[in-house]
């Protein structure tokens, strides 16, 4: 890609990234990743509704698995930056500390909030990153979760505008019908195991 906005981003060492099993280099796939529908990696898969996990047959177990922040982190940290062949975890665009999970078994729905940090404050791809994170989580998580992906306050010149857009369901759903945007998002998700 030409004209990289941030040609030399800070890259974290892989071994420094948070993981549930710090010693295991061949960490098993998280339960959630394997639950993800097969079309999760391909936005152009025949299903016209990639954002809806409509196949409930896989999570109809009587035991509802609880989900924690590490689980969410594992889902998104291996996504690739749209500009660099480096993961969002390595670039510290996503951080374990900026993910919260409310999953009260008494409540019908749970809430996941993820704040991301663009590598530079004027990153023109911040919208794409946000959209990619929304798509990734919507595809991988059961529909009971409401997913709030936001740019961390003060980390982008237009963070308020950006966050209003990411909070707008109609705009997000419309963006998912945009092939150019979904091509970029598909590339980001491609690197996920």
């Amino acid at each position, binding site marked *: 890609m030409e004209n990289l906005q941030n040609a030399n981003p800070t890259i974290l060492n892989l071994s420094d990234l948070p993981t549930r099993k710090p010693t295991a280099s061949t960490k098993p796939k998280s339960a959630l990743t394997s639950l993800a529908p097969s079309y999760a990696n391909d936005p152009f898969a025949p299903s*016209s509704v990639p954002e809806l996990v409509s196949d409930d047959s896989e999570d109809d177990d009587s035991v509802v698995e609880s989900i924690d922040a590490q689980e969410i982190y594992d889902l998104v940290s291996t996504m690739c930056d749209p500009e660099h062949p480096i993961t969002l975890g390595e670039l510290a665009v996503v951080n374990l500390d900026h993910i919260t999970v409310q999953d009260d078994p008494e409540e019908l729905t749970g809430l996941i909030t993820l704040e991301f940090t663009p590598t530079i404050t004027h990153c023109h791809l911040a919208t794409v990153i946000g959209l990619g994170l929304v798509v990734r989580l919507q595809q991988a998580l059961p529909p009971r979760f409401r997913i709030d992906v936001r740019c961390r306050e003060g980390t982008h010149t237009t963070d308020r505008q950006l966050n209003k857009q990411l909070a707008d369901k*109609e705009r997000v759903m419309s963006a998912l019908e945009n092939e150019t945007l979904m091509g970029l998002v598909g590339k980001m998700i491609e690197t996920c195991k």
Partner: protein
Amino acid sequence: MPLQKLASVSAHTDRIWQCAPHPTLPLLATASGDKSSRIISLLTYNTLSTIDGGHKRSIRSVAWKPNTRGESVLASGSFDATAGIWRRYEDDSGAATGGEYNDEEDEEWRFAVVLDGHESEIKSVAWSAGGSFLATCSRDKSVWVWEELDDDNFETVAVMQEHTQDVKCVTWHPEEILLASASYDDTIRLYREDLDDWVCCTLLEGHESTVWCITFEPLTTPNYDAKRGARLASCSDDKTVRIWTRVGQSGVGAGQGAGAPPSILRGAPVEENWTCSAILPKAHDRSIYSISWSPRTGRIASCGGDGKIVIYEEDKTSAPGAMEVDGDAKAEQGSKAWKIVAELKGAHGVYEINNVAWSKRYDKDKRGEDDEIIVSVGDDGNVNIWAVE
């Protein structure tokens, strides 16, 4: 006051954005992310037909043209930036047979016209009360008014570029030629025809985030006050529902009743003054996507991202009269008059609810001619039908 589920229709495999009950027949039209619209019988709660092939992207909004004879006319607005007009001949005995038609007639929905002009996604379509105007709005920040000169011949009579952002919803006043629009810019605007021009006559500010849906008070509600005129209700991403009321003598219609001769001079002021007269009790935890004002009971229903349906009722005795008090005091008094009478969580399971609409009840168990139902549609692709007990 519990809500009883009468039926759940799996109408679409993708989310349903909106639904519209037919003004006179027992029919419901849906707008879905699967690019199609379905017609559902409100007599039997069966799907009667599918309208598809006209739009390349999600259908976001549908609206039945009022006052049609011998045919049904449906307008659709899509993310593909076009609006469509669909027609179907209607046997006038349709009401008696519940709009049931056999398979051959199923094919009779004709895609009559494509309305081109918007630059990006159309978010809402609405017919004026008399059916002569169609309004559309879009992410391109504009509101368009189309006039049907004769069958299938639509002319653009106005393009209003007043909003600074995405326009989410358009709706018409139940008797005046007064159009309202709601936007991602957190405001609501009202427009009138001023001789040859359509102009914005009011800007309503107060909501703290995107205004998703607006609707005028039907003239048949028990609390309708002709002197005050139809009020406007709005709901927002700020999780509030607000009621707006016209203040003082203003506007073309109001001027005639005031004793002053209506001015026909160009430049006569068309500005109107509307004020927030009530904020309904808070009940939603997430964005409120839709509200509907019942023409029979005057109740308001709301729904949103939290999966709840909430019903509010206004106590007439404690509601302020037309011009009694002004400003904040009036708004406070107005707010107190509204009470929550029903609240249902998980009305579409874990899914978000995108639209609610009151409709006359037609099914075999209806309790008289004034009985009504609430129709809700959600991200689960279902149409749920509710009776208020």
